[in-house]
């Protein structure tokens, strides 16, 4: 086959949010189920993959040489307030869903730290939020989804009947079972678009963790930010729940269900390498810690400020410069809670500058074989990819996480080994068996799937 060597129209170099390891793909915009089916049937030797808004940090939403389907035009949203059920096209973002639902007194069941993800992406990666210890993952709230499988056929899957195993294989299945085209999911009724927030500053990691354990049953949403520069592991814990109408001031009540967050700024695409260094990160961490109140209760915050502070800064990933960055997120059972400190210490030992380090507690796992969350602690730290010695330190941490019965989050992963993955997701074989039913020709693939031999 003769192929022009230069880049052709419609081809794009794609990376994850971390902006590392680009690969070239043919991006195909689809606006209907029929178009998705046609793209699947017409997949070439390198296969096909759906990409949402590209917020996976690593190589999950890219596939070199493949057709990468963009379903953003399939973004219709319906809301049945009697049933408390929303139905959305796979390309609809959580942002657009919140804009549609919040004014009607409904909130998404689970949101990660960004609204800029699609429903298809949220299900494929089985995202979690600050309420995992109470509500589980996004996938746990999906009542039905439609999938174009590897033969181009449309399937309706739900968790309860004979399609249950295919449903759970698709939830957290990293887009490798087919193309999700729409989904129905439960929503949370809310009286207001505000969150009632308690903030607590803790002087070291032990205090942070003790406070979080104590708060497990008290709050729907809890997260801790950790100062990775300070050896103490000090941090700020923010907890909250949806504010009731009677918790708002009179003035706030006039706009009780208003939701219209705006992006404040955009990071230009010319950030020099090395902007994030020990000094700037130290200054940021110090300021962030100082800015938090020692102890404050009942503060009324907007959804955006509480859940998605970074969505206020467009393209914030550019701050890490042209070398890109990665996010290391693991979960370990409570019995291995000391690994949180080990990881922070090891990252500090190589002066890996991280200003976004987040600690959370997870509740029980759901039935999805490749879903990441399981009961215990999860730590997520952003690190520039070029930090010397990073590979060795992360490989060492991988070993410890695996030994402790933990694992890494595929939506964030960009470097674990196939052995590490297979060892820490022991239900991989079961997952692959059902995946093969849904995609017998193996046409759904990604760079992540190739890298990890999924």
């Amino acid at each position, binding site marked *: 086959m003769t192929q022009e060597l230069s880049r052709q129209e419609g081809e794009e*170099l794609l990376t994850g949010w971390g902006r590392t390891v680009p690969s070239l793909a043919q991006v195909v915009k689809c606006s209907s189920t029929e178009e998705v089916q046609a793209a699947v049937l017409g997949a070439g030797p390198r296969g096909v993959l759906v990409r949402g808004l590209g917020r996976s940090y690593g190589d999950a939403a890219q596939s070199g040489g493949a057709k990468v389907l963009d379903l953003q035009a399939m973004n219709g949203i319906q809301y049945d307030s009697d049933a408390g059920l929303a139905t959305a096209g796979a390309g609809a973002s959580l942002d657009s869903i919140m804009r549609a639902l919040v004014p009607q007194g409904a909130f998404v069941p689970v949101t990660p730290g960004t609204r800029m993800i699609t429903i298809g992406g949220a299900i494929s990666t089985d995202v979690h939020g600050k309420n995992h210890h109470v509500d589980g993952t996004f996938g746990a709230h999906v009542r039905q989804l439609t999938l174009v499988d590897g033969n181009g056929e449309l399937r309706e899957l739900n968790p309860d009947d004979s399609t249950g195993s295919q449903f759970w294989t698709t939830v957290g299945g990293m887009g490798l079972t087919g193309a999700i085209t729409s989904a129905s999911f439960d929503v949370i009724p809310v009286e207001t678009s505000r969150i009632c927030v308690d903030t607590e500053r803790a002087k070291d990691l032990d205090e942070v963790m003790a406070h979080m354990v104590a708060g497990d049953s008290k709050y729907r949403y809890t997260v801790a930010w950790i100062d990775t520069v300070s050896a103490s592991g000090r941090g700020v814990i923010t907890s909250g729940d949806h504010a009731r109408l009677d918790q708002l001031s009179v003035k706030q009540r006039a706009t009780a269900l208003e939701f219209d967050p705006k992006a404040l700024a955009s990071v230009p695409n010319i950030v020099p390498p090395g902007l994030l260094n020990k000094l700037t990160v130290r200054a940021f961490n110090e300021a962030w810690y100082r800015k938090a109140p020692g102890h404050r209760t009942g503060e009324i915050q907007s959804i955006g400020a509480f859940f998605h502070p970074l969505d206020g800064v467009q393209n914030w990933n550019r701050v890490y410069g042209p070398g890109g960055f990665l996010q290391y997120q693991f979960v370990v059972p409570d019995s291995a809670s000391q690994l949180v400190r080990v990881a922070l210490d090891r990252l500090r030992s190589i002066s890996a500058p991280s200003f976004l380090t987040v600690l959370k507690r997870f509740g029980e796992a759901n039935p999805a074989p490749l879903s990441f969350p399981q009961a215990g602690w999860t730590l997520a730290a952003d690190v520039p990819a070029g930090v010397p010695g990073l590979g060795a330190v992360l490989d060492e941490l991988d070993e410890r996480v695996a030994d402790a019965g933990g694992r890494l989050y595929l939506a964030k992963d960009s470097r674990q080994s196939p052995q590490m993955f297979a060892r820490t997701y022991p239900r991989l074989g079961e997952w692959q068996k059902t995946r093969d039913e849904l995609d017998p020709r193996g046409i759904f693939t990604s760079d992540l799937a190739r890298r990890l031999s999924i």
Partner: protein
Amino acid sequence: MNDALGEPQAILVLGGTSEIALATVRALPRQRLRRVVLAARPSEGRDAAVAALSADGIAGATGVDFQAQATSEHGVFIDSIFDAGDIDVILLAFGVLGDQLAEEASPDLAVEVATTNYTGAVSVGLHVAQRLRQQGHGTLVIFSSVAGDRARRSNYIYGSTKAGLDAFGQGLGDALHGTGARVLVVRPGFVRTKMTEGMSEAPLSVDPAAVGEIVVKALRKGRETVYAPGPLRLVMAGLKTLPRPIFRKLPR
């Protein structure tokens, strides 16, 4: 796939017994390596290279038959390698130094050198480029030489093949720009190998391991050309602009 830290999983070495190429494989982070294909004519040297890599704990090393001059077989050969899985880095490292005086006396010998070093490399290089283009990622590393920077009396036939190869590599890199596939042209100076055994060393001589380190660093940084060692860039810039009457008078 390369991972986010730039570590490749699968390597193809064209010229699988090249000391410089093998040193480059050794300089790569080995934890992530899953497949290392040494392509060369069947020989004890190739078997020994496979065994040595395996003994060093480098996973997935195998030897396969490859002849630089058999250009009509290159397409099928490259397809068979890539059909078995993506290749992240290809080291194009075959070449012969030849015997300048003998070649001047019998041009057939010069043709042999040109066919291996240039024609064979263009042929297999283009087949590799097609497959890298299709997979949308990967780097072709072409081992050129400072001998290609300016023809010298003592080895202009070898030098001319490297000059051609160097120009080919640069142009191919431009053709592939923005496709996820890349070309890195490496210009070593005098490297202490079997090929240069018995020759008097030039200034800035290095061992293969040093070249390997330089190549791996250049791969990580996404460089397009690199001298090995680095300071040769300046030396060669000087030599290239030297007037010919003076250049001719330089030793060798």
